[in-house]
């Protein structure tokens, strides 16, 4: 039981990193990774929203949609629930913790239509995870996102000062740099399963 949870956590952080090997959440990865503080803020906000979203969508799937035989409504219900959740979280933060809102709240509207959040909610259901497993998996995916953002923001400050040929300025060189980080993460493939042998 405990072992399974550790494996889920580690593999969603390193092996199945959502940004670098499944390509979910590329937009914020490229858009908000220019500075370290922004990247960290976005990463933490995404982790929090993922945890909340999975904690809410799992019961909805099993106790509402499956009970009513309406599994095909998954997509519509999940995206609405996530959007409403993000809006509520922003309002609550604004009301009760303005300082936290200043740090994290600004990233929340960006997360509403983040495909990584919807992706992890749907994947947890598709993989047949239990409630605890899906929470752990959401935590792992969120931490993986944070890790990728932080690593990449460090790389980007270096690119910013580099002399890049004109056609590659801006996005192309960023994508190629992301490709190298992704290549590094490929090295984790197969490690996690073998740790506990």
């Amino acid at each position, binding site marked *: 039981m405990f072992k399974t949870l550790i494996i889920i956590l580690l593999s969603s952080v390193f092996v199945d990193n959502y940004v670098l090997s499944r390509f979910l959440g590329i937009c914020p990865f490229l858009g908000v990774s220019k500075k370290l503080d922004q990247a960290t803020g976005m990463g933490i906000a995404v982790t929090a929203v993922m945890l909340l979203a999975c904690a809410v969508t799992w019961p909805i799937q099993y106790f509402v949609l499956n009970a009513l035989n309406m599994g095909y409504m998954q*997509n519509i219900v999940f*995206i*609405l629930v996530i959007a409403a959740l993000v809006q509520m979280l922003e309002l609550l933060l604004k009301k009760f913790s303005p300082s936290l809102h200043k740090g994290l709240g600004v990233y929340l509207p960006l997360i509403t*239509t983040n*495909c990584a959040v919807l992706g992890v909610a749907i994947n947890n259901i598709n993989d047949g995870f239990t409630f605890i497993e899906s929470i752990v998996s959401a935590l792992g995916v969120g931490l993986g996102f944070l890790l990728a953002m932080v690593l990449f923001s460090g790389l980007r400050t270096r690119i910013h000062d580099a002399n890049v040929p004109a*056609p590659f*300025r801006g*996005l192309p060189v960023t*994508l190629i740099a992301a*490709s190298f980080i992704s290549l590094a993460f490929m090295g984790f493939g197969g490690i996690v399963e073998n740790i506990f042998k």
Partner: protein
Amino acid sequence: MRKDSNLDVLTKGILKENPVLVLILGTCPTLATTGTVDGAVGMGLAALAVLLCSNVFISLLRNIIPETMRIPCYIVIIAGFVTIVKLFVQAYLPDLYATLGVYLDLITVNCIILGRAEMFASKNPVVKSALDGIGMGIGFTIALTAMAIVREVLGNATFAGNSIAFLEPYKISFLTKAPGGLLVYGLLIALVYVITKGKAPLKKSFSCAGCPNAATCHTACTEKGDEQ
């Protein structure tokens, strides 16, 4: 808003405002489904169908949907059409359904579709919105297919599943994996820059300006400084 003829509206999505290579929208499916030509064409056509339907529908309802509630309304409409398309693919094209997997659901949050709803369909009549949807959808499909051809032919020495014998000893297998996707995408965008001699609005679209969420989030982009 400048006056565009219907033909302009249809063709601008294909090259001049290609959603993937110029506007840089919908990067996630672009990278994820272009490992094989089949997957790329399927993804492109599925997105085309959703884009056409949602553009028409949102354009029909553009005077009814209240301004403040527009984004949730768009999302519900788009999610509805995605579900329809998904059920169709599941029933008639099970192979494609297996290839695309969760990415079929994720058309819901594809920036291209929400972006076109926000930028075009909510301001234009039905016929133009339909043409815009078709043009953007074709542009998306072409860009995805181009990327998939590069990745599959060079990476796996096959084309749409058919083996290409003389390339077999030279295949670069990492191109079909995740890093290859990012690399080929970067190279293609650089190529488009060279072809258009830098006229493509690359620099602007990279920041928040190209993001459909920009309308709902001023703070994250402007205050914290998104200078390139």
